[in-house]
């Protein structure tokens, strides 16, 4: 009972600042009014004040003598893992990173196996493809990759701040759409990174038990779609 009450009252509330906002507050990067509003909130909200304290703990982090040997060896290990050439183009960095991560490499290995299996099937069964009776004229493309999303997906304990996904090799831009369950578009954006902040106006529409959909499409240098995620669903737990 006591723990539940403390959990409920000390977790970030709907009026709390996001981690990003607290960062900008700490740097004095908000507008004058926003800065004053944030200061007043942090002054009365122990949750946001603690978030700010965490930020300061990071900024003030200096390696302690007892940590020195461990940190030095850990840094050496990270550098050894980093086979990527720092300073390559953003695209090149993404590609090398993509293969650097073991779990993604494993996922891609599995995808290649499935691709070979599928190709073998069609080569051994050379029948003509069935065509639909009618074809939608809008935006049909051939996509060989799927964008793996990080989230939000499923029930959320708090209003999500951003949409995140895994990088796609060859993608230079991502197009993101947030939709109502009837596929009516609420908001869309085009970004170069693998995440995008959800604007406050859209976040305000994320209310308990209301399901929203989102989808991300990876685009190459010519703006051609090369991969697409599934239509992901999420909602704020009621």
């Amino acid at each position, binding site marked *: *009972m*006591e*723990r539940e*009450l*403390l*959990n*409920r*009252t*000390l*977790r970030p509330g709907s009026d709390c600042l996001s*981690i990003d906002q607290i*960062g*900008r507050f*700490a*740097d004095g*990067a908000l507008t004058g009014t926003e800065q004053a509003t944030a200061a007043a909130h942090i002054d*009365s*909200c*122990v*949750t946001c*004040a*603690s978030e700010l*304290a*965490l*930020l300061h*703990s*990071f*900024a003030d*982090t*200096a*390696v*302690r003598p007892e*940590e020195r040997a*461990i*940190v*030095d*060896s*850990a*840094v050496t*290990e*990270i*550098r050894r*893992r980093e086979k*990527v*050439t*720092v*300073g*390559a*183009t*953003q695209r090149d*960095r*993404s590609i090398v*990173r993509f293969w650097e991560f073991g779990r993604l490499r494993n996922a891609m290995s599995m995808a290649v196996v499935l691709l070979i299996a599928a190709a073998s099937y069609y080569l051994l069964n050379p029948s003509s493809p069935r065509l639909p009776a009618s074809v939608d004229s809008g935006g049909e493309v051939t996509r060989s990759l799927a964008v793996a999303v990080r989230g939000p997906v499923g029930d959320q*304990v708090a209003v999500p701040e951003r949409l995140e996904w895994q*990088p796609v090799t060859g993608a230079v831009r991502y197009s993101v759409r947030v939709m109502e369950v009837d596929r009516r578009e609420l908001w869309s954006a085009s*970004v*170069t*990174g*693998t*995440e995008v902040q959800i604007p406050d106006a859209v976040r305000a529409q994320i209310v308990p038990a209301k399901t929203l959909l989102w989808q991300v499409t990876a685009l190459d240098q010519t703006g051609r779609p090369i991969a697409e995620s599934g239509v992901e669903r999420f909602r704020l737990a009621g």
Partner: protein
Amino acid sequence: MRELSDEDLIARYRLAPAAEQSRQLLEELFRRHQARVVAWCYRLTGDRSQAVDLAQDVLAKAYTSLDSFRSESKFTTWLYVIARNRWRDELRARQVRPREAEEELMESAEPSALNDALAALQARDARAIVHRLMNDVLDETEKRVMTLHYGHDMRLDEITAVLGLTNTSGAKAYIVSAKRKLNAAVKRWNGNS
């Protein structure tokens, strides 16, 4: 190069990202912060192997997302936001973790009056009242420890390390004293309301 600020390094890098000079600029930028990120991750995880994985994730994310950095905030703040979000994901993923035996003992040893008094708050605006009482009766460290533990699901040993608490029993002592003070404050609040 070493006299340049983080933000200046990034600005110069963006002038010619493919140039050899730019590679050195980014090496310098990340070299400056690797140890800080690793140390912070080590304090959070208390385990070298986990710290390496977490720090590598954070640095890789920062590296591949550098184009999204806006110079309106400091690079270290931006790096922190990435690290904090990554760590928050970890915390959410382990929300089903079994509670620490030490916590169980600590709570069972406390007077039940605290439970009763706090339970009485539920029908009211509990959040606002608990925050006000904490601001009124707890010192800054007690507030931080309580909030990081109950609001952000951090373990006591993590809080001890991240906040650099040097007392013998670390965060545990602050939880005990904070609850004792809150207990008394809630009783007074009950008496006045």
